[in-house]
């Protein structure tokens, strides 16, 4: 059974990746996630300088998922890359995608240049849509800003550039702009701005008040977005948002995703989730007579 997929120059052993923001604070955990079965692992969104993020609490559990407002906490791209160098051999053996974020076009470019120069990553994923960091979110709400940042980053790197977009009314324009200016793939969607209040404390749980909702609650929305984008655009799509079961994986592939990412489900099922999802996908393909993943992608159209 052929489960391999290619996204630009990135070749993957199967379509199930670890999403950005989950466990990616340290290279050691990326290696562990890959060895647990993820086909690619994505770092935390890295910025030029270290960021503490928001104060605690940064996460709220809700019945249908999680709301987080980590606030793009990360050690800064230079510290991160230096730490990666210590395990460079292991990291270059696996598919590491560097998620990058910034507060200006120039910052995205500088981070992209550094990642490219160190030669550890296989692709870049531009986080243009963090729902709880205003300055970053703006990039994917305005197609002109999207154009500027995608063009500038693509000019500055030899790596394929994936653009992660959020749920906006003009998502189609934003994606069109990203593709036109050099994006090799679109990752959709980011978490959705949300909140939770503790009724006994009588306060919002998150220190930042608002955060990004992930988990099963957003899956049907993310699926719809992938379905729509597949109708409209020809670039590879990476589906993300509440994928929790192998059936969800199949739905996203049928909607048109070339690959998918999982995050929140790792909290419930641990790192064994990759092997479980893959097993379910393979059983389904076997039972339904699919010998190649390519035959499954977009079949629901």
């Amino acid at each position, binding site marked *: 059974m052929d489960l391999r997929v290619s996204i630009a120059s990135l070749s993957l052993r199967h379509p199930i990746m670890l999403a950005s*923001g*989950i*466990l*990616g*604070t*340290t290279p*050691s*955990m990326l*290696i*562990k996630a890959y060895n647990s079965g993820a086909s690619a692992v994505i770092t*935390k969104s890295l910025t030029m300088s*270290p*960021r*503490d*993020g928001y*104060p*605690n*609490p*940064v*996460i*709220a*559990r809700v019945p249908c998922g*999680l709301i*987080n407002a*980590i606030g793009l*906490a*990360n*050690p*800064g791209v230079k*510290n*991160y890359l230096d*730490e990666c160098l210590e395990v460079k051999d292991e990291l270059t053996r696996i598919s590491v995608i560097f998620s990058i974020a910034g507060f200006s076009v120039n910052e995205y470019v500088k981070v992209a240049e550094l990642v490219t120069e160190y030669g550890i990553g296989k692709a870049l994923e531009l986080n243009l849509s963090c729902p709880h960091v205003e300055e970053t979110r703006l990039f994917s709400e305005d197609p002109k800003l999207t154009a500027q940042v995608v063009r500038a980053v693509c000019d500055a790197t030899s790596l394929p550039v994936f653009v992660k977009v959020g749920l906006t009314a003009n998502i189609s324009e934003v994606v069109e702009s990203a593709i036109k200016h050099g994006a090799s793939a679109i990752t959709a969607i980011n978490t959705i701005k949300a909140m939770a209040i*503790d009724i*006994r*404390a*009588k*306060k919002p*749980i998150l*220190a930042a008040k608002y955060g990004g909702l992930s988990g099963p609650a957003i899956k049907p929305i993310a699926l719809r977005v992938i379905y729509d984008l597949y109708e409209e655009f020809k670039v590879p799509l990476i589906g993300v948002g509440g994928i929790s079961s192998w059936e969800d994986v199949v739905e996203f592939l049928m909607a048109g995703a070339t690959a998918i990412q999982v*995050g*929140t489900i*790792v*909290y419930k099922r*641990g790192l064994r989730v990759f092997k479980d999802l893959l097993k379910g996908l393979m059983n389904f393909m076997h039972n339904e007579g699919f010998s190649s993943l390519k035959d499954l992608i977009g079949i629901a159209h």
Partner: protein
Amino acid sequence: MYYVRCSLKSKREEAKDIFSCTFSLNDIKFLQRLMPGRFVMVWLPGIDEFPLSPSDYNVSNSTLRLTFKVRGLGTRSLSSLSVGSSIFIRGPYGNGFRVSKHILQGGSKLVLVAGGGIGLAPLIPLIKDLLQQDVKLHVVCGFRSSNEVFFINEITNLLGDSHTVSTDDGSLGVKGTVVDVVQNLLNKRKVSYVYACGPEMMLYKLHRVLLDKGVPHQMSVERYVKCALGICGACVIDGLRLCKEGPVFNDVHLKGLKEFGRYKRSASGVREPLL
């Protein structure tokens, strides 16, 4: 329900900047899931949320005691709560100290519990559990100076004189560190197992000594905790998450950790060398 509301019943200053707060809470299941060494996330709305391992808990009268050192805004606010006011906790999280006949086998050999400074706090529930086992127990309590000494009456009540107090400056008890005291005991007695909690450099030195002597052990390690749910990665030490695989690690785990005794991580995830 995510957070459990806890009402402050009593508070005492144990030593300089060290406080114990006893809370009542109406959640038996929460208390039943506690184990020595597991931790809770303490939320003071509008101020901070941080991890603490309770220094005592009692299912029958629904109480939980937190003993902590004032270090920042969160712990300072906790120390200035007035009786009757509320805090909120979630958890408990992580793996605690494992106590079993299998681990402690050794007949006449001694089991040691070693606490350094505020690291003594989560060891109290462990000592109570160990006293239920058929083992010979000795507790080593180390402090920098006499003005930081706490819980000695409590430990005397539990263990009689089967404990040693040490201070780095010799102002109370034996002069020396926890590691010095344990080393002396190892030279004199056969020790089957060691449990420890305290500053990381103390733990690291103790770990090296115990490895050298072939004494199995468990240690509770501290890291910056954010989500406590095992997904944010902030508390990772090498490939292990403190909130899932820790905070208590055994000698086999500790031996494989390159960051243990070398680095901590700040809120951003930047590695900071331990001094």
